[in-house]
């Protein structure tokens, strides 16, 4: 057991922080962050920001050298992620690109796709959106209804997608389509968002400032060479892609930041020093977020060591989500004004976490996973 960072890791963290200092505009915290990561403003800015990261070798350092990366150690990759998240994730939409779209195409893409898209992503100027969810299907692939029918050397796509973040500004869509009647007849197409027949409609949403997008496909013609893998290979590819997301976002940074903000408010109002109840609740929150941090570190360590998959990543998410849930209640109880225009950063934190914190379906599933696989394992 050895907790703590090596001097090299500390250096790396400093390098990332310096890049952030250089690349972020002065009004980043005040103007950009409250607009939320999916806002047009932030999505547009990410083209500039990620290009700057790319120049510094900090956009895809974890990628293999042949694709423009530097094979940087997993811990460095993690440190990079921590710092980005702590800064409000200025990579915005492109977080997806570098974390799983690029790596997925490296493995399953054609040479042409690699040449075009992997390189494109490494340049930091391309926006992707993710065409997964559909009305009445949610995240259940088997229930997808957006069809792609072969017509000569094109697929013709009809259907619609919901919850499509970044769609208003995206250049490309990583699209799941149905190419047959069977449960697994799902196929991935890479679709330019300027193809005729695509329309994007935005609705207001509670989960963030800005909009939820729905994307409609009407006789959209996609060249066959834009297919990733074979027909029906989407399940395998998506499972593989999601494995890159195992750790998930380190939620403890934003959580602890939000907590600090609430505590500052309470102190300013004179409600902190003499109220042991509020301090006890804040203390429990610190404990929960720190737990999530430690478990996340453990998961990264396992990945570094190429250990077989365990439920520890689920554990980390369960703990983090419970902490987020309590944090939301804490804000609503002790700083409700923050949610009504009084503090845009806290309000943004609350909104973004609504899916995780309140609806919590994912959370239940994670816990079930832990119980199914995690109990009865040898310990100690």
């Amino acid at each position: 057991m050895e907790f703590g960072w090596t001097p090299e890791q500390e250096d790396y963290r400093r390098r990332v922080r310096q890049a952030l200092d250089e690349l972020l505009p002065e009004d980043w915290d005040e103007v950009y962050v409250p607009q939320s990561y999916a806002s047009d403003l932030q999505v547009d800015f990410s083209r500039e920001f990620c290009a700057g990261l790319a120049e510094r070798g900090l956009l895809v350092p974890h990628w293999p050298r042949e694709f423009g990366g530097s094979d940087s150690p997993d811990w460095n990759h993690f440190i990079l992620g921590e710092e980005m998240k702590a800064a409000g994730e200025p990579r915005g939409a492109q977080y997806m690109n570098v974390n799983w779209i690029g790596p997925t195409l490296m493995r399953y893409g054609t040479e042409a796709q690699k040449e075009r898209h992997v390189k494109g992503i490494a340049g930091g100027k391309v926006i992707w959106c993710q065409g997964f969810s559909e009305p009445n299907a949610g995240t259940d692939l088997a229930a997808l209804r957006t069809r792609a029918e072969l017509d000569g050397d094109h697929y013709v796509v009809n259907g619609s997608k919901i919850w499509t973040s970044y769609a208003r500004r995206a250049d490309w869509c990583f699209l799941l389509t149905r190419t047959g009647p069977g449960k697994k007849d799902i196929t991935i197409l890479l679709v330019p968002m300027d193809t005729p027949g695509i329309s994007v409609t935005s609705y207001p949403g509670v989960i963030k400032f800005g909009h939820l997008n729905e994307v409609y496909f009407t006789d959209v013609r996609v060249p066959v060479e834009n297919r990733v893998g074979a027909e029906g290979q989407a399940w395998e590819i998506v499972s593989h892609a999601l494995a890159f997301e195992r750790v998930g976002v380190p939620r403890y940074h934003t959580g602890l930041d939000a907590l600090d903000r609430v505590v500052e408010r309470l102190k300013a109002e004179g409600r902190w020093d003499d109220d042991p109840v509020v301090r006890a609740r804040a203390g429990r929150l610190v404990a929960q977020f720190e737990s999530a941090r430690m478990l996340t570190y453990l998961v990264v360590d396992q990945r570094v060591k190429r250990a077989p998959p365990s439920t520890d990543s689920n554990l980390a998410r369960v703990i983090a989500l419970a902490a987020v849930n309590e944090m939301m209640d804490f804000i609503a109880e002790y700083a409700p004004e923050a949610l009504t225009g009084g503090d845009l950063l806290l309000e943004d934190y609350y909104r973004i976490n609504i899916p995780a914190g309140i609806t919590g379906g994912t959370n239940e599933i994670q816990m079930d996973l832990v119980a199914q696989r995690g109990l009865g394992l040898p310990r100690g």
Partner: protein
Amino acid sequence: MLEELQRLEPFRAEVRGWLAANLPSDWRRRMLGASEADHVAFQEWWFGKLMAAGYGAPHWPAEWGGSGFSFAQQIVLYEEIARAGAPRLIHYFVALHHVPGTLLHWGTHAQRERHLPAVLSGKEIWCQGFSEPNAGSDLASLRTRAVRDGDHYVVNGQKTWSSNAHHAQFCLLLARTDPAASKSRGISYFILDMKTPGITLRPIKQMTGASHFNEIFLDDVRIPAENLVGPENEGWKVAQSTLSSERGLSILELAERMKQGFALLLADARVPGPDGVPYDDAETRRRLVDIHVRIEALRVLVNNQLGAVLRGEALGVAPSIVKLYYSDLLRDFTRLGASIRGIESQHLEDVLMGGPNETGYWMQDYLYSWAWTISGGSSEIQRNIIAERGLGLPREPAAA
């Protein structure tokens, strides 16, 4: 209580018949996402209809233009209005309850003559200026100052969570006139004309995008001395009349509407969710049952309070108990709704203007439930009232 209500079955039938004939069946469609102006017009129209039928001011004495209904009749009327799913008269709430409750007891004849008929005409919307920012759990610690200057008072300060202040012509205002007096003393009660110079409103933008509430900034606002209600420095007593003017009928209406909201949630729970999973798993059942049980308890708590009013008994802390019970329940109920609908809840729907607290857009309802808790005398205030007056616990430490 039940016997008295049973005797009113003919009256109930009459009200029900009137509602069936006069409530526009499409009002929800019209008020879903309606503009503020359309909503004001609609509220005024509906209030006019109710007034014409004799249902608009059931609790007002006949001499001031009301129906002079018995309390039992009022119970029946409110039950039926709620069961019919009629719009809530939210713009007129303060005017219909707090204004007469205060002025009939403390107001001058001139104040009554000036305002009471105007309220019933539907042209006068009122708001309340009691709450202040950072006042925490204690209304009596308010800091807005009113200084006598000739035949005026000059008011400076800030009020918050004032419902519908942006539509109001007048405001029931509490301000401190004697800063040396201890907390609940030295406060005076005023009628504030919202057109007076020096008043600035800032809408409180809720997460759902709606803004029912406002902050009111008062900057050298001059109030004529004749607008003082009750004696100077006795405003705290006057405010007690305001707060007790509503004797359980609006919570009856809310509880009745909540029962309907629960039916809506039950129907929702039967529909497969976005992931195709039927939501009748053991945990959801358990939560649904627990909410159902609490709604039943709320209903009997409300009946209990109404019964006490009917019998002319002192209510003690019962209204605080009922209000606290309702607030906690509304939050847990709407949260369950949001959790059952899952990812769908993230979609922000248009607001149903004048709708119940359970519109079926559960995430919005849940987010709104927090505003509800803060605005109407927070749950902390209710808990403190119960702790001190109901349980005889010592006053909360000043600091907390």
